[in-house]
């Protein structure tokens, strides 16, 4: 692009009316021709900033970033691989636990089906419930009074005494 063409395109560039090819040519000329840059800045001083020279790529930095990115990607892949089997194992274990709990619960809540364990527990509780038999019975002759002492085998400190009028005895 020559200087004459450039000058004629300044307004069109500012209005964003240039096609891609002419736009690139305009920018190249703006960066390389000091005289035309003065003319462009005369038209719009912000065009001085459009002439900023391209920064040079830092090859070392680019390689460092590439290695860092690929390292991060590999790390994520490894983490995903490590997590997958554990999740499966956990899911399987959870399923086993839920199944066991379901079966146990169902068996405990079922009323019949001849479950020996359930019956044994119920019978044992039924045996424990009746009050212990009287340990001591004193018939105080002449007094018309009988004294009963009730005590539990497991609890020697507990004793209950009843004084009963034999006439009232059931």
């Amino acid at each position: 692009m020559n200087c004459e063409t450039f000058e004629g395109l300044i307004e069109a560039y500012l209005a964003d009316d240039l096609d891609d090819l002419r736009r690139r040519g305009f920018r190249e000329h703006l960066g390389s021709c000091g005289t035309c840059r003065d003319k462009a800045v005369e038209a719009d001083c912000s065009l001085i900033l459009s002439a900023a020279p391209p920064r040079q790529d830092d090859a070392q930095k680019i390689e460092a970033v590439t290695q860092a990115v690929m390292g991060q990607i590999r790390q994520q892949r490894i983490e995903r691989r490590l997590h997958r089997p554990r999740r499966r194992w956990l899911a399987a274990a959870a399923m086993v636990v839920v199944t066991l709990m379901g079966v146990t619960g169902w068996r405990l809540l079922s009323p019949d089906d001849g479950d020996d364990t359930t019956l044994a527990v119920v019978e044992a509780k039924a045996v424990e419930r009746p009050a212990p038999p009287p340990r001591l019975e004193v018939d105080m002759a002449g007094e018309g009074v009988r004294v009963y002492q009730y005590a539990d085998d497991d609890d020697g400190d507990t004793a209950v005494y009843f004084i009963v009028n034999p006439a009232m005895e059931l």
Partner: protein
Amino acid sequence: MLQDKLRVFSGGASGRTEVTMDDREAVRAARSGDEEAFAHLVRRHSGGLHRAVARILRDDTEAWDVVQMAFVRAWQRLDRYDERWSFATWLYRIGTNLAIDLLRSRASRERAHKAGTEHRLRVVGEPPGASDLADHREVDRLLDRLVGALTPQQRSAFVLREVEGMDTAEVAEVLGCSATTVRNHIFQARKVLRRELAREYPEYLPKSHRG
């Protein structure tokens, strides 16, 4: 509008078609687990993405972090990449969004003020004038300082179009907005930059504008 959004870049003179086709092949290979193909994409595009993000963030180190994050995210979402788009545009979209998010979340006003003070202390002696400015890279520092006055969207649009040389349609794809919105961002950005330039760096203006 849809046609515009899904445009396949075909700038024959610049050889862009060939590059984007290679990118697509690399993406296909990467999708099927070829890590080296993805590394090839990282090597090819990280420099350009860094340049754009560093201009938007005005921080070189943070920009490298964003580049790294953008590529990792691109890898994670590779199955979402639509081959009708340019891979570079898709990647720039991820990177620019990350940069804009970062920009919004950080308080950079104090840093910008400090940088401006340092810059003003350097500019002494005879004003260089626009014709000399681009030659000794002062414009690079000037740009770095002045884009701080723009909103994240204006800044991204201006950097991508006016500094990185993308066309308006590409910038619209990257920013996820219409071409009209991009033009509006550029228009507003120029307005702010003219004002800031006149206020802070009148020595760089043409003599007729200095008053």
